């Protein structure tokens, strides 16, 4: 009996017609495409994009060259050299992030005791030449200066959860 039923079903294309009905219905459904350059999806304040280094309000850079980020980085994307500055404080003489290695896990940001290295909301960037995607200390500090307001606001939003 079952095989007769199956024969009937396949001979009259019943199941195929069901499938056609589904796609036919979706032809008139509301489209969910986000038309990217014109429309953007909302971003979380925890978004992990390109990196930046922050400063204290008095202009002093936060980073104390503790190398925790370098140690925790799973992709070995961070390279740090240390020096003693004239006033006796410990600072980085070199702080490079190779964005071609970086996997944007955010561990550097988590490990940082002084909130110096952070990940910003910037994700639309590119490098046209070899080496363009290597962020030096100057690049990172410049990005931090530019985005400080946003970065501060995002940290404030995140603080209740920490």
């Amino acid at each position, binding site marked *: 009996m079952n095989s007769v039923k199956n024969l009937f079903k396949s001979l009259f294309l019943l199941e*195929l017609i069901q*499938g*056609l009905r589904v*796609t036919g219905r979706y032809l008139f459904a509301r*489209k969910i*495409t986000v038309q990217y350059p014109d429309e953007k999806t909302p971003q979380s304040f925890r978004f992990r994009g390109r990196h930046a280094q922050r400063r204290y309000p008095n202009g002093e850079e936060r980073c104390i060259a503790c190398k925790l980020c370098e140690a925790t980085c799973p992709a070995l994307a961070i390279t740090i050299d240390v020096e003693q500055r004239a006033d006796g404080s410990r600072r980085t003489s070199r702080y490079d992030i190779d964005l071609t290695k970086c996997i944007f896990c955010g561990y550097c940001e988590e490990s940082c005791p002084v909130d110096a290295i952070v990940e910003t909301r910037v994700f639309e960037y590119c490098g046209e030449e070899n080496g363009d995607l290597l962020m030096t200390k100057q690049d990172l500090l410049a990005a931090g200066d530019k985005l400080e307001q946003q970065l501060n606001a995002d940290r404030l939003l995140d603080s209740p959860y920490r």
Partner: protein
Amino acid sequence: MVYLIITVAKILLIVFPIMACVAYLTLAERKIIGYMQVRIGPNRVNLSLLPGIRNLRGFGQPIADSIKLMFKEIIIPTNANKFLFVSAPILALAPALAAWAVIPFADGWVLADINAGLLYILAMTSLGVYGIMISGWASNSKYAFLGSMRSAAQIISYEIAMGFALVGVLMAAGSLNLTDIVMAQKGNFLHWFWLPLFPLFIVYFISGLAETNRAPFDVAEGESEIVAGFHVEYSGMLFAVFFLAEYANMILIASLITIMFLGGWLSPFAGIPVLEYLYLPGIFWFGAKVAFVLFFFLWIRATFPRYRYDQIMRLGWKVFIPITLVWIVVLGLLILLKLPPWFA
């Protein structure tokens, strides 16, 4: 001389609109499949002829695509047979266009009104497989070769079911001439052959899908299995010619279905009160019916996954051929009984 010029002009009048239809069929395909997948499809290349109309976004896409393909490099593999490699796409496109010679677009609008039109069509649609086979062989690539073998076996299998479906049409119309076949369906949509020949109509439609290597019978290309099948090694304009051939074949099959089962250029409302005064030229009805059939081609592509190869063979040999054979006998009885309104 005058005859020659007129004929050439007629040929151009057929070929250029077909090329335009092919171009916009690709856009329609991407749009319709996109809509069925809850996307919006291409909408970036705007034709700024009518700047006020925002809904025309995407209408420049086929033009942009064809320009891109024309400027791409044609790569010929080192070990390929160069002559066959270049001639294969031409062999695929030529029969797809040649078959249009006998298609009646409206009453009397036909390039060659020959008596054996149906046979000519059958011959031309079968020739298309040579382009695919030769391309697969000449590329000297495993994937291309596998694709072309699959496609050859598939097309030959479905040719038989297709041929039997045509026998049904031939019996019902009593003629091989396509114009006569349309005239035999005179009347409204209930007088067309799709009703008495319904199983053959469905079989022909599905065989048409298989014949043009369309989803769900697109094992010849099978992107997920054999990269792109017979045209892996083709790039640029040579690939574009294959593309043109596939879509020209699709439109051809759709117009054949229109002519043989859906009454060609005849109005569906003839003899129905009030509606029959809705006068539209035959070419409009023909185009509308072809578009309707083509929509089904796209709808099916958006809906069904690809058939497994043995399932394709089973469907062709063990399902379609018996169905068509049985229905030809039934049809013979219907004709003997002079069943109105079709065979009275």
